[in-house]
């Protein structure tokens, strides 16, 4: 059994603490675009990280394998790779496997081996179990049982590239300029109590859910204990992991839409709830009564993404920055406005959302400027 906690949190602190830069870009019309701009933007926030972690999530990455689970797995040894590949073959139908292309980058030292696999859930799965649950369990199994392997990502038609280094170095190393996707998120990390470890960089991913996160969640202790009741085990001991599991529980298992999930993670104040019209008041009160233990308290900004949607959210009193930019069908989320302006100087709109107010980019409701952007602007405080 691999002790992820040891690797991630060697000093056994309550949790890994970090500060960060985050960036997200989505073409809500679904058009795929190259990562060049995103890489420049996150590089512009270089000083918010310290070179101990950088990473990217890309959606619409593998259209040729769109129906298969794409696993990005890092290995610390050849043996680890052989063991995991045997495991994958035993548990899935393996359609295609290849090494993730990389190029020598001066600042990237001692990189692990990173491979990708395109997998189909086959008859090995118990009949009554959903595909997604089966995949989650196998990912947990690899992450905890195989000492030299770690799954970066496990969703369909998407992938996570991450490692120890500044995000622009990671991008160069993995040749990310060559990829296209309709939704990109990026992260530069400043951990204070965890050594650089490739698996510990953001984005954090389970199935096609990814989270990049800036902040410290002071409610971590209870969030984690609450999620444990539903079978989630926070092996990585990061705030980010809690966000990912909370979103997985609420959206995938409890079937709640993102607007509602945002009201759970950053719930309105009781005094505001009291002023809502009757129907909403009851709804909001019930959500808070039932899911109070999932309220994320303390300073944070997160960008949560899954297929078709990108969500930016801050804590209820906005103790960490988030700026939104819109241009045509493009939606940008960033820790700093300058990073957006750098790659898109002529934004239709830019604004800072109110604390706890989610900003949602969705393929289902593509932005059509200037009308849609104007509508969203009404949130400006």
């Amino acid at each position, binding site marked *: 059994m691999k002790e992820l906690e040891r690797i991630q949190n060697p000093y056994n602190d309550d949790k890994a603490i970090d500060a960060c830069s985050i960036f997200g870009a989505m073409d809500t019309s679904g058009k795929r675009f190259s990562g060049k701009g995103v890489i420049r933007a996150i590089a512009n926030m270089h000083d918010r990280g310290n070179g101990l972690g950088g990473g990217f999530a890309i959606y619409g990455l593998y259209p040729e394998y769109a129906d298969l689970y794409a696993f990005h797995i890092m290995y610390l040894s050849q043996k680890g790779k052989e063991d995991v590949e045997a495991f994958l073959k035993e548990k899935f139908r393996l359609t295609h496997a290849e090494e993730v292309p990389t190029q020598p980058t001066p600042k990237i030292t001692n990189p692990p081996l990173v491979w990708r696999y395109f997998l189909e859930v086959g008859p090995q799965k118990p009949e009554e179990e959903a595909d997604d649950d089966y995949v989650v369990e196998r990912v947990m199994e690899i992450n905890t049982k195989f000492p030299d392997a770690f799954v970066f990502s496990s969703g369909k038609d998407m992938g996570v590239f991450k490692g120890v280094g500044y995000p622009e170095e990671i991008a160069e190393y993995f040749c990310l300029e060559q990829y296209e996707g309709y939704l990109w998120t990026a992260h530069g990390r400043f951990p204070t109590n965890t050594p650089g470890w490739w698996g510990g960089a953001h984005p954090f991913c389970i199935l096609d859910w990814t989270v990049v996160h800036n902040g*410290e969640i002071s409610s971590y202790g209870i969030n984690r*204990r609450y999620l*444990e*009741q539903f079978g989630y085990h926070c092996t990585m001991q990061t705030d980010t992991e809690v966000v990912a599991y909370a979103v997985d529980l609420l959206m995938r298992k409890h079937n709640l839409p993102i607007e*509602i999930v945002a009201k759970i993670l950053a719930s309105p*104040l009781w005094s505001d709830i009291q002023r809502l019209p009757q129907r909403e008041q009851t709804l909001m009160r019930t959500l808070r009564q*039932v899911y109070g233990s999932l309220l994320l*308290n*303390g300073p944070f900004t997160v960008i949560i993404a899954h297929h078709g949607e990108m969500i930016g959210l801050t804590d209820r009193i906005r103790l960490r920055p988030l700026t939104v930019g819109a241009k045509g069908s493009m939606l940008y989320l960033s820790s700093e406005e300058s990073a957006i302006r750098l790659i898109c100087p002529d934004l239709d709109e830019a604004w800072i959302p109110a604390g706890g107010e989610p900003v949602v980019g969705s393929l289902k409701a593509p932005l059509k400027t200037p009308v849609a952007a104007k509508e969203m602007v009404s949130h400006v405080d």
Partner: protein
Amino acid sequence: MKTYLPPKFLVERDQDKCIKCEVCVNQCSFDNHYYDAEDDEMKTRTEGCVGCHRCVTFCPTGALTVRRNPLEYRDNYNWRPEYIEDIIKQAETGGVLLTGMGNDKGQRIYWDHLVLNASQVTNPSIDPLREPMELTTYLGRKPDRVELDTDLNLQTELAPQVKLEVPVMFAAMSYGAVSLNVHESLARAATEAGTLWNTGEGGLHPKLYKYGNNTIVQVASGRFGVHPEYLEVARVVEIKIGQGAKPGIGGHLPGEKVSAEVSATRMIPQGTDALSPAPQHDIYSIEDLAQLVYALKEATHYTKPVSVKIAAVHNSAAIASGMVRAGADIIVLDGLRGATGAAPKVIRDNVGIPIELALASVDTRLRQEGIRNRASIVVSGGIRNSGDVAKAIALGADAVYIGTAALIALGCRLCQQCHTGKCAWGICTTDLFLSKRVNPDIGARRLANLLRGWSLELKDMLGGMGINALESLRGNRLHLRGVGLTETELKILGVKMAGE
């Protein structure tokens, strides 16, 4: 029989300051002060003093001092004065030693070995004077999930919930044990502060029905004062199985305390002893509890949470799990230091376990079993200040009850004479001369002030930890650290050692 018992306290009077107003004579319900006409001097029978400070507080010239009797015994760690004197008392009376208030012994107080966290650098603390800070708490059963239809209409209907503006409620103290004025003070303060008070097992005086929305009514083994209207006016119905001060023991309200009003409220003849059997005779097992829980839910048309209160004992975790499965919406754990109007001293001081440990193990067990959401946890027994409250919440409590702290706010000095019916502060008595010493206007003010002070302090502590809602502290044991605790204690409490 000549008593061999030495006086506990010395009462000294500065004759230069004394103006012979005889206030002390009137104030001391133990008849210790008198005017000696022959000497034209105020005098004191010191042997009866219980150290309640009533005379000291009300002497207009500050002429009185009460000191511990400096009588020295030969040092003997085993035969300390208390044990010697207990034997003397029993040798003279041949009875069970009765006492009032809570366990005063030196068992470890875990609150004193737990410390709270605060934010530095990596996250900001929040200033409650400038930012919202939420203490609102809802007690009651919660489902595991919320279901919505496609138009986001709520499909989940919650079991009855009770809102608290501050997670501190007034613990059960029965009318008869305490006076009607105390009940009224508690009821009015709870109403003002947006919290609940508890009638205890002696019924609810009709005069207080108007505070029903902030009232928890108890149903105990004696069933005193339980009738449809009593259940109807209440916000929460509480089944009392046990009490921290006397786990496994029933109650006995002496006939002298059963005045006309008490008799009407308790529904027993005036002047008769009110005996609460040790168990509830219809509950010999967990399925019997379920029946009573549902009988009360039926009787109140499923409009109120039903709470079940037990004394914290060795198997609390397993018992609590059974209570939740039996339908309790709120479970109350009353710890080793829980107080009482009267209990055998040997029980009070030796039976039960510390509330901190009971709370930690119950919260952990309910989470392990995935049923923590199904009931709220309320703890009581020795909670002294808002620091204890914050620590209890962090260990996993939804709210706390305070009994002793509330009585101290009304004047109580913990003289432990509650069982005598002579409380000089007019709290734990039904004597009309004494009980009018608690003026409900002033009593309610003092109690509401206490709650307000604690709320402000709780907000300060929350803000310091970088959180602005109480639910983010609830069960969040990462905000606690232990000091001077053993490995096993830390494990049960589920907290790390300070410095770790």
